């Protein structure tokens, strides 16, 4: 077989992408001569991606993982000639075929158990034909579907680019964060390293997405979903290949009739006649009425054949004696007593639906691989345990974790807290003086002349006082309890609290899209910058707290990215200022025009325009603080190190 070759650009150099004659290695040889600069063993290729057909550029991306656990390295080949498409296709087809063959023979990759028919080779054939359709979009790879065990392997998830792409396709905001962070990351971090970092904090998302993607709908009662419709006296039937297959699986009788008749009868005719026949009604469990036209082909068959056949299959399975009720009957000589069976258990001809549904459910279940296989030898013991009458036993011993709570007061014996301002003030006090003072103070309460106190006088509120004169009188000494000035101050404080709470509860008008007067475009930018910054902070702290010396270099880059993040925030702030200035300028212009036109002045102040640097900084202040803290911690660790290294040297 010919080995295809593609004229490609790799790292902006022209060259030929091809495979070695033994088809074990992919090579890329520059046109400038010399040996192949890229040589990838096919066995190490973990994924293969191609740009979609619609894309003007034709590129092939080969991801190689040199060894287990190593970072995958991506090679991007750009097919730049006029026959780019066909060349790329040829290379890719060959590669993916080799790839699939390789994978299917690889015993280390767990595969889902192949059930029933279909030899592995047939499957491979299918995979190589159907698995790499020409319209393969960038992002869909030829990686065989990983088996369940892979969902629990963090490394695998981290490297599964297909899965990541599909997750980002689903989660737009994640995609934006990813793209933004990717484009603004410091150049010193490689894309692969960044990728690993980014996804390592989102393994759980990947896992759940992967599992979700791989869940399939099980078999269902397919006949009930096919509803032939009569349009203009003509029967319309919409039936897919899958449905046909499922009908055959669930109703062996239909399969038999199909096999016997279809070459003679056209397929369309077969199905339309079937869905009108009495048999199909019976199989669905519907009532057959005399008005239904009989069909010579179908109605000679008894629907019970279908049911019976499959039931016998289920009955053929060995039933453990301990739960075999029929066996019990046999053992005791059967039920011959006068007690009739329950009404639901008695055979009735005219209620087919129950029977049909039962038999259908049994059939569906019979086709599902059992998930709870129990070792046959243990089965009777297991069943025996299941059947045991547990409520006849005595109370079980409570199996709880005992919480031994030790006396809590003793914990605080070794307190070493720094005394607060209050505590320091208290330390200076003489207890006896304090007591005397308090007791004396209590005696000062004004007597109302009748054994009580004169509250009115004590609260010190003077209704007649005019605040102004009182203030001038009080300027010298501190305001007394209940004076106008303190009441006003207290009122102000409470009102502040109320307005604060109010805005928290109801928000300001139009706040959600344009916070603090920022335009929605800038607000969005702030949100994105924030998300990116948090991402970098996250990565920084994971590396910083890991205490892993191997990640030190990475940490340095991440610290650098924090500095960049701060710069990005200020860039957004600058943009906001610019926008605000323009708004002000425009408004001034409008006012001037209005004045020239009408001779009226509009009262307006520049302060009325929101947004600008202040607004952005106010929004981003917590983020900036977080950046500062991270940088300071890093600097401190560095400084501590600096001292250390100098003493060591």
């Amino acid at each position, binding site marked *: 077989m010919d080995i295809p070759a593609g004229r490609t650009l790799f790292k902006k150099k022209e060259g030929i992408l091809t495979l070695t004659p033994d088809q074990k290695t992919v090579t890329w040889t520059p046109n400038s001569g010399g040996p192949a600069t890229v040589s990838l063993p096919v066995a190490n290729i973990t994924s293969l991606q191609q740009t979609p057909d619609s894309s003007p550029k034709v590129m092939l991306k080969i991801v190689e993982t040199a060894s287990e656990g190593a970072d995958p390295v991506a090679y991007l080949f750009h097919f730049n000639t006029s026959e780019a498409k066909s060349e790329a296709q040829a290379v890719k087809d060959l590669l993916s075929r080799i790839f699939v063959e390789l994978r299917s023979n690889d015993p280390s990759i767990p595969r889902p158990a192949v059930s029933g028919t279909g030899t592995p080779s047939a499957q491979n054939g299918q995979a190589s034909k159907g698995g790499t359709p020409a319209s393969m979009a960038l992002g869909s790879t030829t990686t065989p579907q990983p088996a369940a065990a892979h969902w629990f392997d963090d490394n695998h998830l981290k490297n599964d680019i297909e899965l990541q792409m599909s997750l980002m396709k689903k989660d737009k905001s994640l995609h934006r964060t990813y793209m933004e962070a990717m484009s603004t990351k410091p150049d010193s971090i490689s894309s692969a390293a960044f990728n690993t970092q980014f996804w390592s904090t989102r393994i759980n998302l990947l896992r759940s997405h992967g599992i979700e993607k791989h869940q399939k709908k099980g078999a269902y009662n397919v006949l009930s979903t096919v509803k032939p419709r009569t349009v203009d006296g003509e029967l319309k039937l919409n039936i897919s290949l899958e449905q046909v297959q499922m009908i055959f699986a669930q109703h062996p009788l239909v399969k038999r009739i199909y096999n016997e008749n279809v070459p003679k009868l056209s397929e369309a005719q077969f199905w339309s006649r079937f869905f009108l026949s009495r048999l199909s009604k019976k199989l669905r469990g519907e009532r057959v009425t005399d008005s239904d036209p009989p069909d010579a082909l179908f109605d000679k068959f008894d629907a019970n054949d279908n049911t019976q056949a499959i039931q016998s299959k289920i009955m053929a399975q060995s039933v453990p004696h301990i739960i075999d009720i029929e066996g019990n009957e046999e053992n005791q000589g059967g039920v011959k007593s006068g007690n009739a069976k329950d009404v639901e258990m008695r055979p009735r001809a005219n209620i087919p639906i129950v029977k049909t549904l039962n038999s259908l459910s049994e059939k569906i279940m019979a086709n599902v691989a059992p998930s709870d296989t129990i070792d046959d030898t243990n089965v009777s013991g297991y069943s025996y345990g299941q059947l045991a009458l547990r409520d006849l036993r005595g109370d079980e011993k409570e199996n709880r974790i005992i919480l031994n709570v030790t006396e809590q007061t003793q914990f605080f014996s070794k307190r070493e807290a720094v005394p607060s301002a209050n505590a320091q003030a208290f330390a200076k006090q003489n207890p006896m003086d304090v007591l005397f003072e308090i007791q004396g103070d209590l005696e000062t309460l004004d007597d109302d002349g009748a054994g009580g106190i004169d509250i009115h006088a004590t609260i010190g509120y003077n209704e007649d006082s005019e605040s102004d004169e009182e203030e001038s009188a009080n300027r010298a000494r501190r305001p007394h309890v209940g004076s106008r000035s303190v009441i006003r101050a207290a009122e102000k404080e409470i009102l502040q609290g109320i307005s604060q709470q109010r805005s928290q509860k109801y928000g300001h008008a139009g706040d959600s899209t344009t916070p603090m007067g920022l335009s929605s475009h800038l607000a969005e930018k702030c949100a994105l910058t924030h998300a990116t910054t948090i991402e970098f902070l996250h990565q920084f702290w994971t590396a910083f707290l890991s205490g892993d010396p191997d990640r030190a270099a990475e940490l340095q880059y991440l610290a*650098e990215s924090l500095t960049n993040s701060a710069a990005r925030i200020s860039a957004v702030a600058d943009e906001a200022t610019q926008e605000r200035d323009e708004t002000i300028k425009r408004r001034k212009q409008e006012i001037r025009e209005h004045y020239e036109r009408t001779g009226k002045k509009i009262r307006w102040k520049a302060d009325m325009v929101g947004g600008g640097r202040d607004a952005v900084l106010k929004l981003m202040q917590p983020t900036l603080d977080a950046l500062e803290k991270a940088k300071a911690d890093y600097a401190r660790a560095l400084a501590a190190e600096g001292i250390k290294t100098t003493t060591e040297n």
Partner: protein
Amino acid sequence: MDAVDVSDHYEVTTSEETPSLLSIVLDTNPRAWAALGNVLPLSKAIANILVFVNAHLAFSNSNQVAIIAAHVNRAVWLYPSPPTAKKPTDTSGDVQMQDASTSAPPGSANKFPQFAQIEAAVLASVRKLTDETTGEDLETTTTQLSGALTLALCHIHKASQQLSAAGTNLEDHTKSSAATNPMKGRILVISVSDSEPAQYIPTMNAVFAAAHSQIAIDTLSLSGDSTFLQQACFNTNGTFLAASNPQGLLTYLMFGLIADTEARQSLIPATHDKVDFRAACFCHGKVVDTGFICSICLSIFCEVPENTECLTCGTKLALGNYGAKPAVIPRKKKKKKKIVNGTVREDTGSGAGTPRA
């Protein structure tokens, strides 16, 4: 026919009015009041609080009040007075004749008898409390708040029990059982001192009990740093006010804290939005913002306890990635790292000749 009548509407609203019980916990820490004496003496504060209490009682005949002093070494009932040996007092807050008759026989004609009653009881109890306080009691500088909170909770519970039991006639009974609480209870803490870390556990227990029975804890902090009360207010949907002008005490009380739990639903509270959520660690009583938590009993530790065994429940704790290298050890690890780092930096610095941030 009746339903069309307007009076029906009024009837419904009046019958649904549930009594409101206000329990005031007054922090009577003598040291704190002495320190605050220049600004707001205790005597004036009590007078102001009495005005507030009267206002609360004036709202409705069925409203009740309880005042408890949280002292440095104990919690004391100020009103209603604790039962004497001779006569069991009525804890529902009804008029107590013997107090009034012994202390002030005639009473002022200008004062509503119940107000005079409360006033007399409170003053007598406060004076008694200060007289009983000895210099040794002042060795402890912080207030025993949790005891007072617990007393207030018990009182509210008891009062609401009595109220639901008192509804003997059928109509009343169905009404009280229909409502979740026969009484709107709330606790107002007037705090002048710091939160004592040692009181964290009992205080928070009281707070959770209050939250469970839908009792709001309000706080007016006149001085000091009442961290736990901030959390208490937050957890129970109460109002937290830190008064920067303690002289305006009455304004804070009347303006910010007069609304009971029902009225509050239609009002915007003046509560401060800053809440210090830090907890005190169980091992040293330090207030911490980052710490370790036992996965079994949720005890908080500021550092990994000895032998990584939880001090409270004795569970052997396994430390994750982070805990394996607590705050100090990563630094030690970093030493190695930084050496690597340093060399890298030097290399790049000298090789490329570009300055690095």
